[in-house]
């Protein structure tokens, strides 16, 4: 049986199981009986089997170069190396939807297992129903506009072009999309429970507690996925950067912003019973933004270096996005009175006050990024003009918000709940303040200049001091357990975010880039580094021809940026070579080998400080996320959670 038929059969089976699951759970909920649980187990099993089978069939088609499958004919090639051939499944639109669906069914299985003892609970029932609606949508996409198993009649001797050359020259391509999708799709679980809470009217803290670790893990995967994407971009695109405020990059950043706000504000609801509407809105927004991101990436409405080819998928995703927003808003409006919080914030100078400010800032950040991303579409729709919104806008608008967030990261960890006295603040913040001051002094001594980077370094030092203080106190009290649990893991995550913020500020403020026309033996000097061109070599690979330039940096090791030509894709790309140290990176890329010259090269060199700390920061975030989901020491109910009594006005 052909792969097209097998794959289409698997997708049809998955869709049938999803729709049946929806009906069975809905009927079970309507009849107030929990008997749906046995059938659901079967249906989830069938649905997951179908998703796995579809993926296996696609990989089989890719590995055997079965060009009768249109997706393989358009994206596969007999010349593509094995790893990238395997990763071709998520290199184009239809395959990426297949990967999304596989991960989604995995999450559904995990929910079913985790809540196996609560299948009679309507909260779990409505969450399962919501999950089935989402799986139905994605299976339906694969039978509609994003069909990965369309058949193709290849002419004799046909060989495909292979994936986009940019997607087959770095190992990160195998990891970045799956990790990113684990984050995107992971937010479906808290969304499903939020909808369930609204429908059942159990809008208290139960659904938050049930989904706390799911949210943190999804956030961690999304963070790591974004960092891996930036790393991939830096290592493959050859322009010496890693973040360009591109619409597709923004599409991944938007749910990260709202998800981060949610992770913080959820603590206010857990402790004080407040911000219920806000938390529900944030979790709905986060999920809706993942779908909007899918629309931006896959509809072709916005120009992006990362976008998939234009397809007919746009209206489907936009309709689903509208459905999510309308249903969620409708439910929130319906539960209006029950969502009113009984508590109030006693003082802005308190942990919950800081979380509130943090949420306002994250919401503002998300608004700026969303507005800047879709504004060209708005202008075009209103008066037909074509405009661009890029780096200068995003840098100018987000920089003050970033500074305020760094400041809050320094203040918030030392604040008690309810209210803080000036004495407490003064005592707890003096260490971080000295650390911040020392960082500014050190930066100036090593030659850093300019108010913006210095402010970022100082605030970063201040925030790192506060996080470090919390970790030191916790490990003194609890030993290694002082590194685990939500608060302590969260502080490790803060340190990772601070590393990234400081590295971002340094690399953007002190970037140096220049282009050089060099003949063999020529040396160029740039920011105190020497680059000597020692000649070039042509290397033939099965899928490409590379002309490699040998560049000796500072008289030491030789680096080999190359210009690669992929004949099947009819495209040439440059393959950068990067010298990384803890202090700075030198990224080299070949722009061209000018014709009519004797072995000359047009070389672009980019020198940026602290780049490697971006990737280290990403690893620290991943580690901190893992620590955060490990249960910490439980607080004794008698332990004070607020400032000492004498400091609280009665």
């Amino acid at each position, binding site marked *: 049986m052909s792969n097209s038929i097998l794959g289409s059969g698997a997708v049809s089976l998955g869709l049938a199981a999803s729709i049946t699951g929806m009906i069975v759970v809905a009927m079970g909920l309507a009849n107030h009986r929990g008997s749906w649980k046995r059938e659901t187990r079967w249906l989830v099993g069938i649905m997951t089997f179908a998703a796995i089978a579809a993926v296996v069939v696609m990989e089989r088609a890719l590995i055997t170069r079965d060009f009768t499958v249109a997706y393989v004919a358009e994206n596969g090639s007999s010349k593509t190396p094995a790893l990238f051939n395997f990763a071709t499944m998520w290199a184009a639109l239809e395959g990426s939807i297949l990967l999304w669906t596989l991960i989604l069914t995995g999450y559904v299985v995990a929910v079913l297992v985790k809540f196996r003892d609560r299948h009679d609970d309507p909260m779990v029932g409505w969450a399962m129903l919501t999950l089935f609606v989402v799986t139905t949508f994605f299976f339906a996409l694969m039978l509609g506009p994003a069909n990965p198993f369309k058949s193709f009649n290849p002419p004799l001797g046909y060989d495909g072009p292979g994936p986009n050359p940019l997607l087959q020259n770095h190992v990160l391509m195998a990891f970045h999309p799956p990790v990113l999708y684990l984050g995107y799709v992971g937010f479906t679980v808290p969304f499903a429970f939020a909808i369930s809470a609204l429908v059942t009217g159990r809008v208290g803290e139960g659904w938050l507690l049930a989904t706390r670790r799911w949210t943190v893990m999804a956030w961690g995967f999304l963070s790591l996925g974004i960092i891996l994407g930036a790393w991939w971009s830096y290592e493959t695109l050859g322009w010496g950067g890693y973040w360009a405020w591109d619409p597709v990059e923004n599409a991944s950043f938007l749910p990260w912003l709202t998800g981060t706000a949610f992770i913080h504000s959820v603590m206010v609801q857990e402790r004080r019973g407040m911000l219920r509407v806000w938390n529900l809105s944030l979790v709905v927004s986060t999920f809706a933004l993942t779908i909007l991101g899918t629309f931006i990436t896959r509809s072709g409405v916005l120009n992006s270096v990362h976008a998939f080819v234009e397809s007919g998928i746009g209206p489907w995703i936009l309709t689903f996005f509208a459905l999510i927003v309308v249903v969620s808003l409708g439910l929130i409006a319906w539960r209006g009175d029950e969502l009113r919080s009984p508590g109030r914030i006693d003082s802005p100078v308190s942990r919950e006050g800081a979380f509130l400010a943090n949420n306002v800032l994250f919401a503002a950040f998300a608004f700026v990024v969303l507005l800047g991303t879709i504004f060209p579409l708005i202008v075009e729709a209103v008066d037909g003009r074509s405009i661009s919104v890029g780096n200068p*806008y995003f840098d100018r608008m987000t920089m003050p918000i970033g500074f305020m967030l760094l400041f809050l990261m320094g203040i918030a960890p030392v604040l008690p709940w309810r209210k803080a006295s000036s004495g407490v603040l003064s005592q707890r913040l003096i260490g971080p303040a000295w650390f911040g001051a020392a960082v*500014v002094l050190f930066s*100036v001594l090593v030659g850093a200049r300019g108010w913006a980077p210095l402010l970022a370094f100082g605030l970063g030092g201040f925030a790192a001091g506060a996080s470090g203080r919390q970790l030191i106190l916790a490990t003194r009290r609890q030993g290694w357990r002082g590194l685990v649990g939500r608060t302590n893991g969260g502080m490790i995550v803060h340190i990772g975010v601070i590393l990234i913020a400081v590295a971002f500020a340094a690399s953007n403020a002190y970037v140096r880039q*220049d282009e050089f026309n060099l003949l063999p033996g020529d040396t160029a000097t740039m920011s105190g580094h020497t680059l000597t061109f020692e000649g070039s070599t042509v290397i033939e690979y099965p899928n490409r021809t590379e002309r490699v330039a040998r560049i000796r940096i500072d008289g030491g090791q030789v680096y080999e940026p190359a210009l690669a030509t992929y004949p099947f894709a009819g495209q040439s790309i440059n393959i950068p070579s990067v010298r990384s140290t803890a202090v700075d990176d030198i990224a080299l890329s070949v722009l061209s080998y000018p014709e009519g010259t004797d072995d000359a090269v047009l070389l672009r060199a980019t020198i940026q400080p602290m780049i490697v700390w971006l990737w280290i920061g990403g690893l620290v975030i991943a580690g901190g996320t893992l620590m955060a989901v490990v249960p910490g020491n439980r607080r004794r109910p008698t332990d004070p959670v607020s400032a000492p009594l004498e400091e609280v006005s009665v």
Partner: protein
Amino acid sequence: MSTSITRKRRSNLRLWSWIGAAVLAVSAFLYGSVSGGQPQTNAERAHALADNFACPVCSGQSVAQSDASVARIIRREIRTWVDEGRTTDYIRSQLVADFGEDIDYTPSATGITSLVWILPVVGGAGAITGLFFVFRRWKLDADFEASAEDVALVDAARADLP
């Protein structure tokens, strides 16, 4: 008596520590901000400018990022203008005249495009005002006299503390 003196001494010490940290941070910050370091070279200024314009034939890449030949030509043009001492406004107007408004990554602050600058500021101001009123209302709600019963309850609870 001696505890009170120690506490006061500690408080004074902390105050001086704060003053020391503030003086150190502010003076280092001002020195680093004002002294400016090495002036930007023409190459650096040209690169910074090229990052502010969209490559006219690429999908979402700036002139600085793109390897397309037209991007390389524009980079060379920008470098020539910078070497000639042209202003940023001159370079912007030349590129917009040659390639259209959408080459400029900085939206104009006039007409409908000004909304992209105004809306976040208005939204931010609205959020701050809203928070101010919310906290004010919460504070007013909290301004009540504790009854004798409340005070007795709190006293009893405090007496139970170890």
